[in-house]
């Protein structure tokens, strides 16, 4: 089983967030709580349902990740872009995603 993290978009502003170890929704993927076994994944899913019902987040999903040199890295490109932002310069004052993180 691949390691997993719980992700969603915050209801109020839609920003992508990940569940961290303190049970809070955090804008940084690297703060996410990583589930490494089935029971832990089930617990994540329960928290996701709870916080969706509590109108804190929407579009809740468990996604596959791996840990490389201490960094959490989603297996799917889509989730890497979700975590790191658009991959090109898109607005003054905002940095594009790190190409090394995005790379397959």
């Amino acid at each position, binding site marked *: 089983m691949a390691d997993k993290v719980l992700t969603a978009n915050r209801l109020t502003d*839609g920003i992508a967030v990940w569940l961290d170890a303190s049970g809070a929704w955090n804008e940084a993927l690297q703060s996410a709580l990583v589930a490494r076994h089935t029971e832990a994944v089930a617990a994540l899913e329960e928290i996701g349902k709870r916080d969706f019902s509590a*109108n804190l987040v929407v579009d809740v999903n468990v996604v596959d990740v791996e840990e490389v040199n201490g960094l959490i890295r989603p297996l*799917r490109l*889509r989730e890497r*872009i979700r975590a790191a932002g*658009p991959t*090109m310069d*898109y607005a003054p004052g905002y940095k594009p995603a790190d190409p090394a993180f995005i790379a397959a």
Partner: protein
Amino acid sequence: MYRYDEFDHAFVSSRVEQFRDQVARRLSGELAEDAFKPLRLMNGVYLQLHAYMLRVAIPYGTLNSRQMRMLAHIARKYDRGYGHFTTRQNIQYNWPKLSDTPDILSELASVEMHALQTSGNCIRNVTADHFAGAAADEVADPRPYAEILRQWSSVHPEFSFLPRKFKIAVTGAERDRAAIQVHDIGLHLKKNDKGEIGFAVYVGGGQGRTPMIAKKIRDFLPEQDLLSYTTAILRVYNLHGRRDNKYKARIKILVHETGTEELARQVEAEFAHLQGAELKLPEADIEAISTYFAPPALVARPEGWAQLAGAKKADASFAQWVHQNVEPHKHPDYGMVTISLKPIGGVPGDATDVQMDAVADIAEQYALDEIRITHEQNIVLPHVALADLEAVYKVLVAQGLATANAGLITDMIVCPGLDYCALANARSIPVAQAISQRFGSAERQAEIGELKIKISGCINACGHHHVGHIGLLGVEKKGAELYQITLGGSADEHTSIGEIIGRGFEPEKVTDAVEKIVDTYLGLRLSKDETFLQAYRRVGPQPFKDALYGEAAQAA
């Protein structure tokens, strides 16, 4: 342009207040997501990869400087300082907070704008030729009819929950600049032998996973029957459209499965019930709406001819920009200016708040306060005196808006792709940027001539890849991006769907593949006057397959 009357103001304002209440109830938890989602979509609010996205309607792509300034203001105050112009001539903001959206809609309403019907299974923003009212080849201005359709279709109770979304486009010239044959309904405004105005009616065009070219079901529909006939089409579709399968729910599938002849028969039968009744457009109403779109009083500016000739002689870059981005206006002292939103290596269709303000300033000072958004994701100033072109150009240069590439290989339609879109499978923008940089030199682009590349990041085809002379479709294969190439597509009056040329290319190889295709074209064209599309239609896919795949293609 059209101005809201009291009813319009009251209607849009009431919708803003309704949505404000709905958002408040959603944020308080009174409304659950399942109940709220269709409500936010009806107001143009999507949830994308990184954040919410708000799509604002720009009816038939026409706006004035006050409205453009408001779009800039919203980008600055509520977003990250930019907006993205779309193929439905709308604008999208990529980072608005849900909690801000009622205020954004309220600000939009103050300049007679809204986000209604920019999502959902309803009649979407009616698009039109971006040169409407200015083009020398125009039979009549399509915008009054687009406006009539907008008014008729806005919260139309019968057509707010169609089997699927529904897109209408109108053109007023023989040369189709509105891609009408890839729309659910395409209307070609024309005159009959008696000089009367009417429409050729096309139905069942579309892109997505099943691209179809629309079928002409009426050669001439009198203008007073526009709403009766459109209603008849919508009724047949609403009744028989495939609600059982989302992927077969567009009218193009109904037309295909029913057969054009039978579909036309059903439409005519329904039309027979409606014709001449309450939906008949009174001449006075058409005239009243047309008054809003009366051509501006253009004063003669014959001094512009000599001025322009002198300025072009003195500045080669300016001359190139005029050659590529300015087209003849129906008034000989004026031109239609395309402001390219495709800077070399930039993000196609994006404009910053500062750029939007600059366009508004130019429009006010030099272009009779008229601005258009094109379905090819550029901006047009439809009425600029030749005498003012140099001044306009200088401001555009200062704002990074003077790229002289309208209609050339770097002027691509590109969807947001996986950099923003929750539905995408692959990125579109970085691929476009790499191609733009590869072909960025003015000389090389001029040598290649007219060539339209269109890029989609998934099969939904928002980047119109099916009708690109060269189309690129991004897919996900074994977890990685791959780009399938189609050739020979076109969205003009001779619309065609591109043919898949062979196996796809990895992101790092796709620019080389495009270059091989272009080099192959340059090697086989009969003369510089033979465009890529003409050459492709003459020789077919084989030379391009050979160039891309060599022996393997010959074996296949």
